C-alpha cells in the first residue's frame, strides 16, 4: 500500500510529463495544462494522505524498489524514505506546485509551446519529489541533477534568445560545480561508513567510536558546496538572478519556492553529519550571513522587478543557512516554508504585473498599478509585509526566530542578519511604491491595456497571500507545532527551547522597528519625494557598483571562464598541432634517414663489392679470429 502510494506520488507527474511530451501538441493548450495541473494535484492529495498517516503513526515509511548501483562496499537501492521532513517538503512542493500550474494555464496561454512548458514543469515536480523522498544520497542526487536539468530547460524556455540560453547554461554549470562537491562528499561518506542510506548512516554515525572527524568535516564541507550551488550561496549564487530569464511561474516555483531550498533540505536531512562538523557549521553560518547581506545590498538598487525578487530570494536563503549554521534546523525549515508562501506569491504577483504590461519588467516604467490591478496589489502587499517582518504575518515569526538564534550564538552575525532584514524591508517597499503607487510611467498603449489578470492567476495569488498571512501559525514562539513534528529527525535534544523572556521581546521589538524603519525610508524616498531610479547611464558611485552586482560576474569571467577559454585556444592551436607535429616528426625522421641512406646506393657495383668484401672480411675475422 505504501509502495503504491509512493509510486503514485512519484509517477503521476512523470506520467503527466510523458503525456504532454508525446500528445501535448495534439491535445491543445488548455487540456495539456489541465493534465499537468491534475498530475501535480494528485501528487498533492497523496502527500496529504501520507502526511495524515505520518502524523498519526509518527513513524516514517521506507520503500525499497530494487538494487540500483552495486559498488563493492556499498549497495545502493532505488528506494524512498517518507518521513516527517520529506512529507513536509512534499506538501509545499506539490501544493505550491499545483497552484503555480494552475496559474500557468492562464499565464502561458499565449505561448505556442505551452504543452512543453507543462511537460517540463511536471518533469520538475517529478525530480523534486524524487529528490525529497529518496532514501539515500544517490537517489537524492538523481532528483538534484534532474531539477537542475529542468531549471536549465525552463530558464531557456524561450530558446530563440541566446541570452536566455546563456543564463540557462550558466545555471546548469554552476549547479554542476556544486554537484561535484556533493559527489565528493558522497564518496567520502561512502568510504567512511559504507553506506549512503540516511537511516543506516544515522545509526552508523551514532554507533561509531573514534570517528575520523577531520575527514567527516571535509565531507560535510563538500556537501555544503553542493548546497551552495543549488541554493545559490556565495560563491555560487550568480546564476539565480540570471535565471529570471525564464517565464515567471518558473521563477516562482523553481527559483524561489522549491528547488533552491533543496540545499537546505539536504543539510537538514544530514543534520547528524553536520552536527559533528562544528567548523563547517560556522562556515555555513558565516557564508549564509554574508550572502544575505551582499544579496540584500545588490537588491537595493535593482530596477528589474524580477531581479529584485531574485536577490531577495538569495538573501532569504542566506538567512536560512545562517540558521542551519547554528544547528537550528527546524527554524530554517520554518523559514523555508513561510518563504515559499510569500515569495511564490510575490513572484506570481510580479508575473501578473508583467503579464498586464505585456512583458515590461523594468520598474522605472511602471507605477500606479494599484487601481488597475487591485488583487495583485493587495496580495503582493501582504507578502511584502510578511517578508519585511511586520508582526503577525508569517515572515515575522520565522525571521525573528532566525535572528533570535543568531543572537544567542554570535552577535556579529546577528547584526549582519538584522541589517539584511532592514534592507529587505526597504527594497521590498521600494518595489511596491515604484510599481503600484503614483502615476503610470509606461507608454500610452500599455496604459490603455492595463487590466487585472484573469481568475486563474488571481486565485493562486489569493491562496498564497492567505498562506503568507497565517503560515506563521505552525510555529508560534514558545508553542511550536513544527518543532514537535520535526523533533524525531534531530539527534540534538531540544534543550534550547527559547523561553520568551525580556531579551526575546526586546529583540522582537528591535526587528519590528528595523522592518518598519526600512519601510519608512522607502516611503519617504519613493512616495513622498517621488524619486524614480536613474536610467542606467546616470548611475554612479556605490550604487553603480551595487547595480552591477559588485562586478562578480565580470570577475568570474575574468578569473575562471576566460582563462579556460584561452587555455582551450592555446591547447587547440599549439599543443594539438605540436603533438601532431611530433608524431609526423617521427615519420619525417624515418624519411630523412631513408633519404640520407639512399645516397649510399650509388649504383656503382664496384663500390658495393668493395664494401661487401670488407664486410665479409670483418664478419669472417670476427667469427674465426675473435675468440
Amino acid at each position, binding site marked *: 500500500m505504501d509502495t503504491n502510494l509512493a509510486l503514485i506520488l512519484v509517477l503521476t507527474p512523470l506520467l503527466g510529463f510523458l503525456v504532454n511530451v508525446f500528445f501535448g501538441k495534439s491535445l491543445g493548450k488548455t487540456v495539456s495544462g489541465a493534465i499537468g495541473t491534475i498530475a501535480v494535484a494528485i501528487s498533492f492529495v497523496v502527500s496529504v494522505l501520507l502526511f495524515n498517516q505520518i502524523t498519526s503513526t509518527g513513524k516514517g515509511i521506507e520503500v525499497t524498489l530494487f538494487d540500483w548501483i552495486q559498488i563493492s562496499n556499498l549497495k545502493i537501492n532505488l528506494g524512498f524514505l517518507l518521513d516527517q521532513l520529506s512529507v513536509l517538503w512534499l506538501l509545499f512542493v506539490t501544493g505550491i506546485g499545483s497552484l503555480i500550474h494552475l496559474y500557468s494555464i492562464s499565464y502561458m496561454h499565449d505561448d505556442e509551446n505551452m504543452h512543453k512548458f507543462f511537460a517540463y514543469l511536471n518533469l520538475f515536480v517529478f525530480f523534486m519529489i524524487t529528490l525529497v523522498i529518496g532514501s539515500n544520497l544517490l537517489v537524492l542526487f538523481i532528483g538534484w541533477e534532474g531539477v537542475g536539468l529542468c531549471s536549465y530547460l525552463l530558464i531557456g524556455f524561450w530558446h530563440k534568445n541566446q541570452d536566455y540560453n546563456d543564463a540557462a547554461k550558466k545555471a546548469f554549470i554552476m549547479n554542476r560545480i556544486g554537484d561535484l562537491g556533493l559527489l565528493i562528499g558522497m564518496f567520502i561518506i561512502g568510504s567512511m561508513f559504507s553506506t549512503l542510506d540516511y537511516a543506516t548512516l544515522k545509526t552508523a554515525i551514532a554507533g561509531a567510536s573514534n570517528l575520523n572527524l577531520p575527514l567527516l568535516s571535509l565531507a560535510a564541507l563538500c556537501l555544503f558546496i553542493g548546497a551552495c550551488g543549488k541554493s545559490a550561496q556565495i560563491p555560487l549564487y550568480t546564476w539565480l538572478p540570471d535565471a529570471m530569464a525564464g517565464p515567471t511561474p518558473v521563477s516562482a516555483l523553481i527559483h524561489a519556492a522549491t528547488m533552491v531550498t533543496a540545499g537546505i533540505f539536504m543539510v537538514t536531512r544530514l543534520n547528524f553529519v553536520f552536527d559533528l562538523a562544528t567548523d563547517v557549521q560556522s562556515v555555513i553560518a558565516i557564508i549564509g550571513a554574508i550572502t544575505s547581506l551582499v544579496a540584500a545590498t545588490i537588491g537595493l538598487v535593482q530596477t528589474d522587478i524580477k531581479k529584485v525578487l531574485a536577490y531577495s530570494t538569495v538573501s532569504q536563503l542566506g538567512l536560512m543557512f545562517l540558521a542551519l549554521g547554528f544547528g537550528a534546523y527546524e527554524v530554517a525549515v520554518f523559514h523555508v516554508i513561510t518563504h515559499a508562501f510569500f515569495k511564490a506569491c510575490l513572484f506570481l504577483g510580479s508575473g501578473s504585473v508583467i503579464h498586464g504590461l505585456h512583458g515590461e519588467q523594468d520598474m522605472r516604467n511602471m507605477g500606479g498599478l494599484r487601481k488597475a490591478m487591485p488583487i495583485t496589489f493587495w496580495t503582493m502587499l501582504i507578502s511584502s509585509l510578511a517578508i519585511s517582518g511586520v508582526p503577525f504575518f508569517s515572515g515575522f515569526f520565522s525571521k525573528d526566530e532566525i535572528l533570535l538564534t543568531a543572537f544567542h550564538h554570535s552577535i556579529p552575525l546577528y547584526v549582519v542578519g538584522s541589517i539584511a532584514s532592514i534592507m529587505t524591508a526597504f527594497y521590498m517597499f521600494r518595489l511596491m511604491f515604484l510599481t503600484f503607487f503614483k502615476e503610470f510611467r509606461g507608454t500610452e498603449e500599455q496604459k490603455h491595456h492595463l487590466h487585472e489578470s484573469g481568475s486563474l492567476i488571481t486565485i493562486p495569488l489569493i491562496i498564497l497571500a492567505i498562506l503568507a498571512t497565517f503560515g506563521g501559525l505552525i510555529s508560534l514562539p514558545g508553542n511550536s507545532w513544527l518543532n514537535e513534528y520535526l523533533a524525531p529527525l534531530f539527534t540534538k535534544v531540544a534543550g534550547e527551547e527559547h523561553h520568551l523572556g525580556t531579551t526575546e521581546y526586546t529583540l522582537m521589538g528591535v526587528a519590528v522597528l528595523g522592518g518598519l524603519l526600512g519601510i519608512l525610508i522607502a516611503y519617504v524616498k519613493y512616495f513622498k519625494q517621488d524619486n524614480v531610479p536613474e536610467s542606467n547611464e546616470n548611475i554612479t558611485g556605490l550604487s553603480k557598483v551595487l547595480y552591477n552586482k559588485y562586478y562578480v560576474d565580470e570577475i568570474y569571467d575574468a578569473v575562471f571562464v576566460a582563462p579556460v577559454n584561452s587555455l582551450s585556444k592555446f591547447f587547440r592551436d599549439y599543443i594539438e598541432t605540436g603533438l601532431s607535429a611530433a608524431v609526423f616528426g617521427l615519420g619525417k625522421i624515418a624519411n630523412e634517414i631513408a633519404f640520407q641512406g639512399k645516397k649510399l646506393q650509388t649504383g656503382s657495383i*664496384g663500390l658495393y*663489392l*668493395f664494401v661487401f*668484401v*670488407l664486410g*665479409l*672480411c670483418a664478419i*669472417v*675475422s670476427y667469427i*674465426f*679470429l675473435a675468440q
Partner: protein
Amino acid sequence: MIHIPDFAHATTVQVIFCFLAFITVITAFLTIFSRNPIHSAIYLVICFFSIAGHYLLLNSQFLAVVHIIVYSGAIMILFLFTIMLMNLNEQREVHRPRITRLGAIVSFCLILIVLITIFINSKPIVGEYDSTGEDFQSIKVLGKILLDEYMVPFEFASVLLLVAMIGTVLLSKKEKLNK
C-alpha cells in the same frame, strides 16, 4: 703441421701439382690483366685446362672430362662468341680511376690475408690420409649416386638448364620495334 713440399726430394706428383698450380694462378692473373678480352678468354681456357689437370691428378676423371666439356668447351665458346659479337678490343676499355685499382688491390690483399690467417689459425688437424680402398669416384659409382640419391636434384638441374635456355633465347631475341 703444414706439409711443405720438399722440392729437393719432390715426387713426380708433387712436381706436376706445382706446375699445374703455377699455370692456374698465372693464367688466372693474366685473364684479369690482359687488356684484350680475347686474350683474357684464351688465358681463361688455359686456366680451366689446368684445373682439369688438377682433377685428373685427384683421380676424378669423370669430372675432368665434364669440366673440359662444360667450361673449356661450352662456356668459353660462349664467351668468345659474345666478345666477338660485341667486337670488343682494348681500345674500348675505359681507363679506370686510381682509387678503383687501389680498392681492388686492398680487398685482394685483405681477403687473401684473412682467409689464409684463418686457415693457419684454425690449426687444422690433418692426420694420416686414409684410404678405404673402395672405389668412390669412378663414373659407375658417380652415376649410381647421381641417379639414386640425387635423382631429384639431377632432374631439377635439367629443368634449370631448360629454363636457362629458354630465358637466353628470350633475352637475346631482338624486340620488334613499334609493335
